[in-house]
């Protein structure tokens, strides 16, 4: 059995052919490091039935191809696959290299670039300058990429900036928008619908996602990101 200091990982269905490994014990940097490392390790295995492995804060999803699952002896084979995935997930330790890439992104805060800055400040009882300072202070870690191509989910947001998502999302968020919601920070790589609070915008020439580039994403899971206010 697992010792009490090790978090439990269980497998549950996201969908019939998308198996979700969940690490109990809450979403914290240790959990997302586990998720990142486990997903990378599972992808490296290149298991025949596995199409993709995706991670988030404390979850890893293994997407399976049903045409590659055995039709005979399936019950035991699937239990065996689940057991192997769990064993690997339990054994994973954080292998994020200490030399993960770091970057600093200049941000135009407030005004038309950050239409929610004033409302966020008001909701938190802070000045706009305070919000900007607290947003720029941490070094964020890219926990994973999701939602949209190239969208980085950043962890490390100051707890005093936690706010629920907007009650009604915008149908159109400008590309490069720097945003927060709940305890997450992110950057919209392209124009899309969005329900996060928009604090500012990065240089429009900086493409977080370019399908013709190799690799297509500017940021990878594990990278470090800092923001700095750009003078107008």
């Amino acid at each position: 059995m697992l010792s009490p200091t090790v978090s439990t990982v269980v497998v549950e269905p996201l969908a019939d052919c998308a198996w979700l490994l969940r690490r109990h014990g809450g979403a914290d940097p240790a959990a997302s490091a586990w998720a990142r490392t486990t997903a990378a390790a599972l992808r490296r295995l290149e298991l025949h039935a596995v199409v993709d492995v995706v991670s988030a804060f404390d979850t890893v999803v293994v997407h399976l191809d049903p045409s590659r699952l055995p039709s005979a002896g399936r019950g035991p084979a699937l239990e065996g696959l689940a057991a192997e995935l769990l064993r690997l997930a339990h054994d994973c330790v954080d292998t994020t290299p200490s030399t993960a890439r770091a970057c600093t992104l200049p941000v135009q805060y407030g005004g038309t670039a950050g239409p929610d800055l004033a409302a966020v400040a008001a909701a938190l009882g802070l000045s706009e300058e305070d919000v900007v300072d607290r947003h720029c202070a941490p070094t964020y870690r890219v926990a994973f990429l999701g939602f949209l191509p190239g969208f980085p989910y950043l962890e490390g947001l100051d707890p005093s900036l936690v706010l629920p998502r907007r009650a009604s999302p915008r149908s159109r968020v400008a590309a490069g928008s720097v945003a927060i919601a709940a305890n997450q920070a992110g950057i919209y790589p392209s124009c899309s619908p969005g329900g996060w609070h928009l604090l500012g915008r990065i240089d429009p020439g900086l493409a977080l996602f370019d399908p013709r580039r190799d690799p297509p994403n500017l940021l990878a899971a594990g990278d470090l990101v800092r923001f700095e206010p750009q003078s107008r």
Partner: protein
Amino acid sequence: MSLLVHRPGLQTTFQDLGRPGLEHLGIATGGAVDRTALRIANWLVGNRDRDLGLEITLLGPELEAETDVVVACTGATLDLRLDGRLVAMGRPLVLRRGSRLDLGAARCGARAYLAVAGGLLADEVLGSRSRHTLANLGTVLERSSRLRCRPRPADLGDAAWSVAGAPPPRAGHTTRLRFVAAEGLGNLLDGARYRVGHDGDRMALRLDLLEGMVTTATTSPGRTTEPVAFGTIQQPPDGRLAILLADRQTTGGYPRLGAIASADRSQLAQLPPGALVVFEAISWAEAVDLAVAHERELAKLELAIALARNRGARLTNTNDPRARA
């Protein structure tokens, strides 16, 4: 070899089987929403199942063959006309140079697929030629454009056989979708009937509650974002239901009720606006069994189509008048 586009249709996009394996970069697989229908259309014209075709939504294009070409149309039941004459779907059709094919309006279902022998040609981006609306990859069909395909001899006579599946869902009628409930939740949709809204797209189907009571899963400010899949059923705060489709986001933070069984993916893809839906919860194990069985049946169908095409080709090559089936 090419076809001229006289009318592009309501929303016609190039689709193949998408870009699997890039979800961890935030790029959902995409591709044909009704994968099965595209695969069958491709098999009918002798293509690989992953060759590029057209996905037609509700109202299709009008095309003119500039060379002799073999096509097939599957999925939603369209008012399909070749030079004004109503023709059956689900079989290979020979278009002689100058023929016009009008893909018309969908009488049942929502999405039809047109495959052209040889496969359509378009730029490949990140391993696929599919149009992905959220990521803005690939192209939409435009008026006066040309569909180009790889050269293939149109050596088939008109087939006397066709492939037909269960009739697709229609507005006003009820479809039952099987789903696997999210861990720890029972069937929160038990006894509820929903209606498909008009604002769905390739990202998601949107449904409104018509009858019954539904327990609302709660949202908290700290709710953690998790990966999602094709068929994930979400409950956004506005009380409607969203079911994620091909061009969905790869992760989501809304309450998740479960996911539609892979075996019912085609039914899901074919729900037109106004269709009614009820949900039946099945076990994870049963859903996997159904998914595997479905793939097995498709493998058999692929073989049967190949054999029928072979027979057809041989028959038209003989001089025996009885062979003109």
